[in-house]
């Protein structure tokens, strides 16, 4: 089972001891400040130098931040387009990795899968699930992907809780940017990590010459596409432009997206977190 390391650039609010920096005082190693012994602070942490230099003569006690847990959510797009090629496999691998990593880090994990309804089609409320990784993988592998997924008016906040969480947004983002912006706006209280699942087949034509009727499984739009030797280049350009647009938009809401094309390497995701949360 794949595992990666994630970290956050903000302080967790939870009082539960965990792995992440927190704003709660407690038995951590991160120095917070001094307090008077009279306030009921831990006498084991009496700071002699600070006490001597204190003009009021109080005993000064060092105070520390504790490390806390962070809720980890996966918001997965289970729309029809995610059933394309080996995207389901990729989705299930990623979800498994996140669930397992959350379990190993000691964080509670929740899963919200949006398919053809406004409410989650697969919902795992926030818990410390031990076997989540395995069960969820099995559940996703046999899932009939359908509907428009995230490309519909949604109210996700109710399923995520009011505490700030690390929310992985798994989708191929094949919906209008305005919809994505609305979604990100709605998820502002949370730390959203957009994970973009693409297949390189999507911009690699199946033939040099030929034509192929296409339909959008979500909107039903039909189009006949003509392939010629220049098609691959224009498709690649279109996807590059899309990549830039997504990056630019997501960056405005906190994080740049992490692109998963064809395959997923956990180290790359660890690296992503190392780079983004120094």
């Amino acid at each position, binding site marked *: 089972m794949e595992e990666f390391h994630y970290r956050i650039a903000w302080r967790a609010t939870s009082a539960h001891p965990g792995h992440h920096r927190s704003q709660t005082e407690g038995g951590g190693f991160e120095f917070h400040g001094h307090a008077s012994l009279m306030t009921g602070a831990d006498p084991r942490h009496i700071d002699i130098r600070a006490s001597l230099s204190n003009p009021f003569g109080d005993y000064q006690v060092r105070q520390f931040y504790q490390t806390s847990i962070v809720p980890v959510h996966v918001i997965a797009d289970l*729309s*029809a*387009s995610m059933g*394309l*090629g*080996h995207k389901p*496999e990729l989705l299930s691998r990623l979800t498994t990795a996140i669930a397992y990593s959350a379990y190993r880090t000691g964080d509670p994990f929740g899963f919200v899968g949006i398919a053809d309804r406004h409410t989650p089609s697969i919902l795992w409320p926030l818990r410390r699930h031990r076997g989540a990784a395995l069960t969820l993988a099995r559940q996703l592998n046999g899932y009939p992907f359908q509907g428009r997924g995230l490309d519909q008016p949604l109210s996700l906040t109710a399923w995520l809780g009011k505490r700030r969480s690390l929310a992985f947004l798994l989708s*191929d983002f*094949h*919906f*209008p*940017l305005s919809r994505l912006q609305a979604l990100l706006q709605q998820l502002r209280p949370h730390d959203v990590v957009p994970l973009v699942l693409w*297949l390189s*087949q*999507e911009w690699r034509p*199946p*033939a040099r*010459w*030929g*034509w*192929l*009727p*296409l*339909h*959008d*499984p*979500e*909107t039903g*739009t*039909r*189009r*006949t*596409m*003509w*392939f010629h030797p220049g098609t691959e280049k*224009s*498709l690649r350009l*279109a*996807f590059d432009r*899309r990549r830039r647009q997504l990056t630019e938009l997501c960056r405005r809401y906190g994080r740049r997206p992490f692109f998963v094309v064809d395959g997923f390497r956990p180290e790359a995701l660890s690296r992503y977190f190392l780079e983004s949360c120094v």
Partner: protein
Amino acid sequence: MTNLGLTHPLWLLAWPLTLVFLLHPGRKGVPYPAMEWLPMDALGRKIDRLRRWLAWAFLSCLILALAGPFLKEQKVARLGTGAHIVLTIDRSSSMNEDFSGYLSGNAKDSKSAAARKLLLRFVEQRRQDLFAMVAFSTAPVHILPLTQDRAAVRAAVEAIDRRGRGVTNIAPGLLMALEEFRDHPVTGARVILLVSDGGTHIDQDTQERIRQRFRDVGARLYWIYLRNPRSISVLHPPKRNLSETTTPEYFLHRYFQTLGVPYRVFEADDPESLAAAIATVDRLENRPLRYFETIPRRDLSAHLYGLGLILGLPLLLWNALEIRQWFEPKR
């Protein structure tokens, strides 16, 4: 458009099916989610539209071709200046006998074969005339009405050297030949070209009837006399032994002279007689004749099949270029 007809018009009921190609969006095809923001290619849409119309035209062609369109037989007004000639051919058994004349020096051909050669030449040289044909032996046989159809006339003439049978019975043949003119306006000289090898006795009653009919119709009579060596020449008859039983042709000749219409006899053993016959017909006064030539109906479905082929070949190419799958599930 009224010239067009259909052999099986019921096939047209299938025509609305062709609209399916225009209206139906076609195979749903491969799911491709990124359509929302992909650049449109206008050319592809144009080609697709062209393909639909091509398919429609192709199917329409096929259905029309199945319906079997044809150009109806048409009557084309022609201006003819020819004479109306009824070939009246003797098909009696005596025509099977050898003929000795200039046409075949060794006298191997039968008389009817000689008559065929002769008439073929005649018909060849008189291209603007209208011909009819009547054959007679014991009883007359109507073969061809007055027509300008060269092929039909040639075919009729070429068939006269088949074996003849029966006796020579000229009177009914002549009467039937005269009947040919009945429904035709008198716009050209009317000629009855009698090709015969002998005569028979015609009784007095019939003689009168024939004479009367000739006068009514106003036809000329030209007799091409096919003589065998033992027969007499009607032009230069011997001075003796003339009788109704031994030399009936001479008496027939005499009778024809009394018809009161222009009459000439040509003896076919004379090399010049055919030329003389043709020249004689040439000299006849002919007014221009407006007549209608019938062109047979023409089947047009072959053209439509051809057009369908031309329209269908690009579709074949299209079909070859069609891709069936894009994303294969990798498992």
